[in-house]
């Protein structure tokens, strides 16, 4: 028997209360995460990837209700009491956010903000915590860390603030780091540096990473396994190389084709960017069969009637689609 995974998510559902009634934004998501493993969750806006992250942390907004099971360290995180969750958050589970510009409190200097989780969870003294904060700032590549401790967020650039956020998240050596679009708000040049940093820190510390992004390029460079989400479901999942080599779900193929590419020497005439036709389906009125059928060029009558099965494509690689014979048969693997 294999040892139990670090984190196992089973049939996670997140229901939102809206003016037009309850809708399910995450509809039965299951995955596991082992120690040191890196998982990418990719999908377009509104597919439920951020809600998934917040559900894992127990930080869903008011009016959102999670069901299913998120097992970590013998607990179901979804049923844990707030006090126990507070002990885990920032300590065993840490999160970094999309907007480094607004995720730091403008009234406190960053040294204090990094030192706080250390004082709270590890019961360090203020002095010890500040010393650790210097190490952490150094680890995330902020020059002159001791001087920067007393800097206020507005005195730092976006990239530096995101580094400070990462330092905060890493303060207590968490088991799992959840990064929700950590590079989306940053310049492209900084993006690469931050991703390299996250990747390196994950390798060094042996923590597990859940990286959420809408950018396939970011996912491809950073994680071992990928989960493609559409309308609250994982439509394709597998090891990142496998998935990118044999994109089995038409939606995943669409995402891949929609990536802007720079082809040197071929800038004229510029090829139009590929798009996926149609819009994300309204969660109030999701089809009972495949949610992507309305936008799918390969859809056949069965796709609109019957829920697609999870088809095994390769080792540990599966996709929820009736038409994998088509997608894989045409052989346009990149």
């Amino acid at each position: 028997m294999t040892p139990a995974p670090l984190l196992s998510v089973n049939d996670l559902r997140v229901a939102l209360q809206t003016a037009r009634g309850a809708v399910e934004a995450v509809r039965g998501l299951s995955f596991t995460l082992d120690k040191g493993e890196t998982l990418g969750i990719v999908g377009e806006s509104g597919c439920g990837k951020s809600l998934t992250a917040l559900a894992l942390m127990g930080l869903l907004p008011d009016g959102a209700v999670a069901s299913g099971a998120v097992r970590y360290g013998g607990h179901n995180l979804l049923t844990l009491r707030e006090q126990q969750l507070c002990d885990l958050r920032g300590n065993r589970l840490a999160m970094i956010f999309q907007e480094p510009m607004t995720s730091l409190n403008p009234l406190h200097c960053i040294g204090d903000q990094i030192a706080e989780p250390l004082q709270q969870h590890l019961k360090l003294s203020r002095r010890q915590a500040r010393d650790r904060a210097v190490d952490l700032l150094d680890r995330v590549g902020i020059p002159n860390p001791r001087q920067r401790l007393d800097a206020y967020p507005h005195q730092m650039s976006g990239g530096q603030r995101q580094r400070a956020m990462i330092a905060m998240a890493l303060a207590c050596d968490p088991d799992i780091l959840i990064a929700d679009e950590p590079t989306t708000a940053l310049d492209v040049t900084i993006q690469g540096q931050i991703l390299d940093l996250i990747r390196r820190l994950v390798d060094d510390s042996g923590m597990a990473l859940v990286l959420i992004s809408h950018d396939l390029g970011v996912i491809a460079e950073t994680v071992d396994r990928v989960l493609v989400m559409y309308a609250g479901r994982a439509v394709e999942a597998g090891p990142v190389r496998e998935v990118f080599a044999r994109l089995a779900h038409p939606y995943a193929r669409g995402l891949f084709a929609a990536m802007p590419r720079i082809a040197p020497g071929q800038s004229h005439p510029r090829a139009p960017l590929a798009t996926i036709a149609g819009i994300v389906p309204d969660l109030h009125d999701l089809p009972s069969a495949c949610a992507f059928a309305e936008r799918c060029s390969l859809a056949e009558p069965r796709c609109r009637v019957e829920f697609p099965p999870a088809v095994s494509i390769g080792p540990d690689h599966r996709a929820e689609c009736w038409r994998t014979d088509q997608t894989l048969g045409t052989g346009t693997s990149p």
Partner: protein
Amino acid sequence: MSDGRSGSSFLRRAFRHRSFVVGATLTAFVVAMALLSLIWTPYAPTAINIRRRMAMPSADHWLGTDSFGRDVLSLILAGAQNSLTVGVLAVGCGIVLGSTLGLLAAARRGWIEELVMRFADFTFAFPAILSAIMLAAIFGPSTMNSVVAIAIFNIPVFARVVRGSANAIWARDYILAARSAGKGSTRITIEHVLPNILAVIVVQATIQFALAILAEAALSYLGLGTQPPTPSWGRMLNEAQAMVFRAPFLAVFPGCAIAIAVLGLNLLGDGLRDLTDPRLSRQR
């Protein structure tokens, strides 16, 4: 919201803000009167001198004397002390209790928020005068009575303002980040929410202070607040009313004192609001 930049730029902007400067000066003037009355008044405020009753302003009595021959200037100075004491106590109670309720409502949401806000609506429905009449009927009129009545009126004001601003802060990204670092709602309230809404509370407090002074004068005028012989602006107006044609000065001076205090605090509040709101300050 201020972002931790040095205080000197705040002061520089403040000195260029007209209503802030005027308001601060008038308020400082009233506070100075109250402080001065603690150590010195031209005559003892309660000393009666029947032979010199209703004297016109003169070198001996700068603002004249009232129907008992008491020195009006001394009464006004001592009255400032009374007004400010009532204001500080009543608004202080309002800030502490009201802000606590507002912060609690914002932190806990759900039925607690609903309960606090309905309580605020309920309390708000009774004017301060009405609560004061009620309290006076039960406990008898006194300065404490007006303090309690004005405090009751202030609690829902602060509860509402604080809850509204605190809710806006709770929606910020850095609150989510703080929660993801494992902080409980009490710590987040103290470390993140309260410092960010302090400016709002201060501004509201100045405006409520002006209202409290006005309410105290009204209650004393009606005989529900400060009782004789303690000097009070409101009661001076009441006593002057009977002889407003024989000695109009008796009504003018306490009236001016109330007007200066209320105007000063209102201008100060306006100025502070402009100065602490970065969007407004840039337009000026």
